């Protein structure tokens, strides 16, 4: 059981690491919109301790790129909690440097108190068209239409069968027609 649990943890961490790598590649390629969803996926799958600073840095840089200043500062605060010696790249943009400076001023946050990352609007699934209501559906998409059609067809078929197969008893002698 212990081995199984360890294997499961390793598997989850590997998945988290793969998502983190994918997020890093997306950031390097400028595909910022994919970064945060991949980071969320990595957090859910679990990350090795060594990968947590990289994940937080990526989140902070991406948030800053989208002008989500408060979220960027918060990410830097968490990052400083796990990696107090962290310093951003000296070539980083002024926005990133400003967020980091503000995080340093506020002080580090504890990871245990980190809330579930909120999903920015651009990571939300596109709005679905409203489902058609019962009143707006065409008549042929309503169950009672087909039920009624089946009843009518059945009755018609029975009537036709009756008409074509009269069940007048014939008797022991041939029948006759009155004039």
């Amino acid at each position, binding site marked *: 059981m212990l081995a199984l649990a360890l294997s499961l943890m390793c598997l989850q961490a590997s998945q988290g690491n793969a998502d983190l790598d994918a997020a890093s590649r997306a950031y390097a390629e400028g595909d910022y919109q994919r970064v945060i969803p991949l980071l969320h996926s990595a957090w859910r799958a679990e990350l090795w301790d060594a990968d947590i600073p990289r994940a937080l840095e990526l989140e902070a840089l991406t948030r800053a790129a989208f002008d989500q200043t408060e979220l960027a500062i918060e990410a830097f605060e968490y990052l400083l909690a796990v990696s107090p010696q962290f310093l951003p790249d000296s070539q980083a943009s002024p926005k990133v440097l400003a967020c980091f400076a503000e995080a340093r001023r506020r002080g580090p946050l504890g990871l245990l108190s980190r809330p579930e990352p909120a999903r920015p609007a651009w990571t939300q699934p596109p709005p679905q068209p409203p489902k058609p209501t019962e009143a707006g559906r065409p008549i042929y998409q309503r169950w009672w239409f087909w039920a009624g059609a089946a009843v009518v067809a059945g009755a018609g078929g029975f009537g036709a069968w009756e008409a074509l197969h*009269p069940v007048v008893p*014939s*008797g022991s002698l*041939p*029948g006759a027609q*009155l004039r």
Partner: protein
Amino acid sequence: MRRLHWVGVLALCGCGPQAGIWLKVGAPLSVPSQCDELDVSVTRGSDGANLLSTPYSLTASTPFPVTMTLSTDDRSDLGNPLTVNAQGKLAGAPVASGTGTVTLESRTLAPLTIVLSAP
């Protein structure tokens, strides 16, 4: 009787005849030694019009009682009492006869039983 009516109603639904008579003729006669022919005639009570006059040859395979369906598509026959006369013959000579009256109803097979007796 109720069952026969039900069968009749079912039978006459749709494109079938307007009405009919489910005729059953019984007689204490053996076929064909005592009776080898049955004449059936139907007359309308209101004007005495002859609606049917049919002879049936009886054989050993059709002993009494015999049954038959007399149907009509003429709506004027409905509601008028009809007199049905059945006469048994042996070698052309009458040996027994019987009469019954029935009134036809729309899309109904009206049952009528006639028992032949010596004239």
